[in-house]
Structures are given as C-alpha cells and as structure tokens.
C-alpha cells in the first residue's frame, strides 16, 4: 500500500468516526469550533502514525484519545501562559489535573448520548431552521461547506457565515451539548425532526434551481434520519419520520415526466418506485405504529404507505386515507391538510362528501389564491354531474396557477365540462 492510498483509507475511517468524535469533544470543551479543530488535529496525528503502526483495532477510541491528549495539553498551555510564579505553577498543576480528570471522566460517558447531544444542539430552536440545517449537515453529516452550498444553491460564503453565526449563537447561549431528557427532550425533538425533514424536502421538491429534485439531499436527510432512529429507537415520531422519508424517496425516479414536469401520484409509472425503499419504509412504519404512531410524522407516513401499497392508482385504499386525514388534521391543523382530506373523502365516499368538506374551508384565508382548492371543487362538481359549476371552478383554478402545464390541464378539464 503506497502512502497515498493509506491516507485515503485513513480519511475514510475518519469520515466514519467524525461525528461521534466531535460529539464527545464538544461535550467537554463546550465549543463546536474547538471540537472540530481537535478532531482535525487527531486526524493529522493518525495520518502521520497509522502508516507506520497500521490502523488500530478500534480507530474511534484511538482518535478520541489523541484528541483528548491535545485538549489537555492545550488547557495546560493556556494556564501556563496566564500565570508565571512557581507557587502558582504548583496550583496550576492541580488545577490542570482536575481539568484533565474532568475530561477523562466526561469522555468515558456513553458515546450514544453524546452524538444525540450534538444533534439536539445543532438543531436547537434558538437557531433559524436554515442555520440548523447548515450546521447539522456540516457537523453531523460531515458535508463540506461547498457541498452544503451547492445543495442549497447559495454561495459557499453564505453557508460559511451561516455556520459561523450559528456556532457563535450556541456559544453565547452557553449550551451544554448534553442530550436533553424527559419533557425537555420531548419539547425539543420537533425542532430536530423539522430540520431533517426540511433537508429532505429541499431535495424532494426542490424549490429553486433547474433540477426538480436533488436526490443527494434526500439521501443525506435519510441518513440523518437513520442515525437518529438508531439513537432513539423508542420514539414513534423519529421512526415515523424515517418511514415517511423512505416511502417518499421511493418515488424520486417516477416523479419527473417526459416533458420535464412533475407528475402527480396518479400519473406516475409505479413500476419505477423503488421497492427496497418502500419495504424499509413500511418496516419503519410498523415500528412507529407499534410505539404509538399518533403523531404527525407517523400519520403522514401511514398516508404515504397507503399509496405505496397500491399497485395502481385504482387500487388505492381511499377510506383508509380519509380516516388518516381525519386524525392528522387534529394533531397538525392546516387548511391544506383539510383540503387533502376533502379530496380523500370524495374518493372514498363520493363527490358530495367532498363538497360538504370543501365548503367548510372555502373561506380559509390561506387558501385564497391556492389553485388546488377550486381545482378540487371543480372535480367534485364534475363527478356530481354539475358541469356548468364545474367549468367555472376549473377556469378559476386555471387563472390562479402559475404553472403552464397545470393551466393547460385545468383548461382542458373546463372544456370537458361541455
């Protein structure tokens, strides 16, 4: 093995260990920057020693020890610089011994908890969702600022600044990097899940740029979701989010049509759905439901699963979907969910059921210029035989949409009303 190859192998090992390493160090030095520096220092030592001694049996532990040593040395050095007299130097030795012991003790703690602590800290609600996402991808995901910038279609400088500011905010707030427990954990978990799902959605329904989907972001989000599920396997919403992402990601290859536009569920070629992902998603959903499965992510996963199980659009279990929306709107109220619920009821129980529900939300401010609302009502009216009213709804929807392909589709439906 040439020296170059060994370096690559060592860096690959480092990449596997990096997040846990930073987590363990951050817990002790209480500073993400410092933790990252110490981790990097450990890598440098590994790069110089492992080619001679070979890769150690437990590389993670080796790196942690190397980083720990440097942390202790740095503390001693700092204190040496501050004081000069011999007696004070004696005190110093005691103090730095205490510090060294504290570091040793802290670093022997359960590693799983430390990684979870780092995740919760990077996703702390005092940071904006964008800042949380950038910091999480950098520190937990190990992406470079360049990779993150490309993923979110901003400049590297913007992301770098975002991360610097996020670290500063964390520092000023004096966060401990410890994983929260009990009620505090339950209260802060939503902001962690929000970040992971934000990253996923950016890849699934890319809001900017030429590509309609960016699978690499979905990949990264799912990886984070799996890591979190490994650390918190007993939490229904953590497992539910994983299920949701796996099932949605299974459709990535089917979402884009020949003319380059996004296809709806009805239009997608289901043969292109990734069955391996669907199976993993359904397994995760089963675990989430066994754990309770009443939260918004578990319910959305259950909804996605209904579609995943249907071999064709015609096989869709609409009554089940309707029932799930009935539950989802209670835990996660939103006019858009209410609209989807109306559609589900119309598919399950007939157009009049849909019309009844849609009339209840017709005046919602949030849906005022939302094309899918009149589009749905138009569909219900058409199926109920009320063609003239259907036509005006489709025309209204067509005027609201900014998507040319969708407009053409709605105008065609208006024409079909005779």
């Amino acid at each position, binding site marked *: 093995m040439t020296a170059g190859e060994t370096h*690559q*192998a060592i*860096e*690959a*090992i480092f*990449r*596997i260990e990096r997040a846990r390493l930073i987590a363990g160090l951050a817990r002790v030095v209480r500073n993400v920057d410092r933790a990252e520096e110490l981790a990097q220092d450990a890598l440098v030592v590994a790069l110089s020693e492992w080619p001679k001694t070979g*890769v150690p049996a437990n590389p993670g532990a080796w790196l942690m020890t190397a980083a720990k040593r440097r942390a202790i040395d740095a503390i001693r050095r700092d204190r040496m610089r501050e004081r000069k007299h011999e007696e004070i130097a004696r005190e110093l030795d005691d103090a730095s011994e205490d510090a060294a012991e504290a570091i040793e003790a802290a670093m022997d703690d359960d590693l799983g908890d430390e990684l979870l602590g780092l995740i919760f800290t990077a996703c702390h609600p005092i940071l904006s969702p964008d800042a949380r996402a950038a910091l999480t991808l950098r520190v937990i995901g190990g992406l470079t600022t360049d990779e993150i910038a490309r993923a979110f279609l901003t400049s590297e400088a913007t992301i770098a600044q975002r991360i610097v500011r996020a670290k500063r905010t964390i520092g000023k707030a004096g966060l401990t990097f410890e994983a929260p427990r009990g009620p505090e954990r339950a209260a802060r978990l939503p902001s962690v899940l929000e970040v992971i799902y934000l990253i996923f959605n950016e890849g699934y329904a890319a809001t900017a740029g*030429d*590509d*309609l*989907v960016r*699978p690499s972001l979905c*990949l990264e989000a*799912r*990886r*984070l*979701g*799996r*890591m979190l*599920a*490994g*650390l918190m396997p007993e939490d229904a919403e953590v497992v539910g989010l994983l299920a949701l992402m796996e099932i949605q990601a299974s459709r*990535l*290859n*089917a*979402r*884009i*049509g*020949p*003319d*380059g*536009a996004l296809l709806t569920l009805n239009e997608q070629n289901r043969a*292109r759905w990734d069955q*391996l992902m669907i199976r*993993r998603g359904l397994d995760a959903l089963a675990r989430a439901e066994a754990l309770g499965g009443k939260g918004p992510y578990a319910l959305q996963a259950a909804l996605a699963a209904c579609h995943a199980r249907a071999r064709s659009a015609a096989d869709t279990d609409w009554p089940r979907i309707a029932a799930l929306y009935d539950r989802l709107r209670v835990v996660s109220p939103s006019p858009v969910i209410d609209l989807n619920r109306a559609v589900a009821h119309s598919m399950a129980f007939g157009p009049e059921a849909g019309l009844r529900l849609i009339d209840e939300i017709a005046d919602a401010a949030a849906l005022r210029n939302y094309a899918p609302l009149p589009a749905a009502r138009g569909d219900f009216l058409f199926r109920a035989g009320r063609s003239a009213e259907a036509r005006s709804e489709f025309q209204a929807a067509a005027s609201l949409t900014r*998507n*040319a*392909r969708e407009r053409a589709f709605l105008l065609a439906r208006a024409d079909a009303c005779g």
Partner: protein
Amino acid sequence: MRVMVFVKATEDSEKGISPTAETMKLFEAMGRFNEELSNAGVLLAGDGLKPSSQAKRVAFDGPGRTVIDGPFAETRELVAGYWLWEVKNMDEAVAWVKRCPNPMLGPSEIEIRPLYEMADLQEFLTPEAAEINDPTRRKLSRA
C-alpha cells in the same frame, strides 16, 4: 455511491447453517455489525443466501434456455450473502468491510462491487435510452 458487498461461500457455508455455539457467536457479531451499518445510515439491504444445493441456474444460448440444478462445484465463486450499501467512495466501503466480524469460521473473502449509476452509463447510452432510465436528471422545461 452504492456498492454491492458479497460474502463469498466456503465449504462450510455450502453445508448450510449449523446451530453450534460458534456459529451462533458469528451470527450475534454479524447482527451487531449490521446495526452499526444501519445506524450510520450505510445499510440499504442485506440477506444471507441458502447453499447452492437449493439453487438453480438457467443457461442462455441464443433462444435456448436450460435449467441446471445445484449444487454447483466452484465454491470459491459462489455467493453466500450480500449487502447493498450507500457510501461516499470505495475507501469508505473498504473501511466498513474491514470492521466486519469474520463472516465464516475459517478464512473467507468479501467482495465489493460498485453499482453502475446513471452517470457511468451516459457515455454509451443513446439519449432516448438514457432519458427512459433516469428521469431525475432532466431539467425543468421552461414553460
């Protein structure tokens, strides 16, 4: 990138799973390794394969299809188990394989094969064939 990771067969694995204390230890260690892979977000799929005595082959020659029953002789070339992993590069794949506990009681081999991804096929696929196979690369048509 995705890789397929094969555990190659040995004479022992061709005899099937023997429920001895030693093999149970192998199973436990492998189970823990699979959990590590899963928690790191690397594991996409994985299974053990039954011995070739339960396998069949189909030989293709022009229009000809011939079914051949196992067992098959070339133990060294047979696959006893597989994984599908998502990794950054081959170095990471190798690093993970090195962490794997011994898959067999005696000496054994694990092979790592990267999958063809769309980018690799672009060069020789016709534009139509490429499009059919990878819609996610298509750009939004300016409508």
